[in-house]
């Protein structure tokens, strides 16, 4: 920036220098609370139950009865229950880094490979800027592409959307994508699935 521009820099800096925004972190936390977070909580809780059950078994029934979940008996109940809770809790959470649980566009209906009659309704959830979801219905093997857009109920957080498609009989690829504000690579989600119209 040239020295000639310093006057504008100072002007704009001064114009908002007195702006002291209220903290919105709690609001952001609240709005993102439904997303998968703090994955250690459920495993830790399950592990705690398991350890408590084993300790209880040790003191109540003696050292020989708490050797593991394969041992039958009174103490094995809670131990297995704790272990089961842990297992179920863990599998409810994402366990890899493939992004499966935070897809910004999800198509709930119709299912991939479904056969539908025209017109049919597509429903799902999307996290999109301004809630805008774009879609295309592309005939397999070529032909006229039908496209359009839908608006999710709410911006920037997972929100339901739906749109109705009218198309002649045929086999199609349905592509639903978000409208990303970023030009960055890999930040646009595109869901593609097959659908047959009868």
């Amino acid at each position: 920036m040239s020295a000639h521009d310093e006057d504008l820099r100072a002007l704009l800096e001064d114009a908002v220098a007195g702006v002291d925004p209220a903290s919105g972190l709690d609001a952001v936390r609240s709005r993102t609370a439904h997303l998968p977070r703090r994955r250690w909580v459920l495993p830790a809780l399950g592990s705690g139950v398991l350890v408590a059950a084993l300790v209880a078994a040790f003191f109540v029934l003696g050292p020989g009865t708490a050797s593991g979940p394969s041992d039958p008996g009174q103490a094995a109940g809670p131990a297995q229950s704790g272990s089961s809770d842990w297992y179920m809790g863990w599998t409810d959470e994402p366990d890899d880094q493939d992004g499966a649980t935070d897809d910004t566009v999800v198509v709930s209906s119709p299912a991939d490979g479904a056969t539908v009659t025209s017109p049919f309704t597509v429903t799902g959830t999307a996290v999109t800027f301004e809630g805008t979801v774009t879609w295309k219905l592309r005939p397999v093997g070529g032909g006229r592409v039908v496209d359009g857009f839908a608006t999710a109920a709410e911006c920037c957080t997972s929100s339901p959307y739906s749109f109705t498609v009218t198309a002649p009989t045929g086999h199609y690829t349905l592509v639903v994508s978000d409208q990303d504000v970023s030009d960055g690579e890999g930040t646009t989600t595109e869901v593609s699935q097959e659908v047959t119209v009868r």
Partner: protein
Amino acid sequence: MTRAPEATAWDADTAVEQLYAVHYRRLVRLSVLLVRDVGTAEEVVQDAFVAVHARWRRLRDPDQALAYLRQTVVNRSRSVLRHRGVRAAHAHAEPTAGTTRPGADEDVIAAERRAGVLDALRALPTRQREVLALRYYLDLSEAEIAATLGISRGAVKTHASRGAAALRATMSTEEDAR
């Protein structure tokens, strides 16, 4: 921006909290330059952080996340102006609520000067206002502004030149009037 050593290992919660701690205030101020209203600007920036949280696994990189935040704040500010009629709603509002401390002459003069700048920005075409805010408040390069706004570098130069000239002319007129 200096990248934290473990930044790429952040989960979405950590990323948002770290980015929030460093950039929230400046992004709100950027949005105030665009929409003029502090409360609206706070909502805009909160929306942007929610969006980053949802996309963190794809963004991963704090630098890319910051670029995404800036872009979302600018686009969302523009959208708010367009859809909610903030211009009209605040056309007669007091300047920058919460920033003035009436009483001392210096404070009153400073508040008037700030209000004058915000009014002058508001009077500019949207692109000129956005380019000026990104260039002179965030100190972004032409390339960064072009990427943020999705326009060419030539267009950035044009908007910057015209916007700067218009802003200087308005402020000069206001100075003469005092």
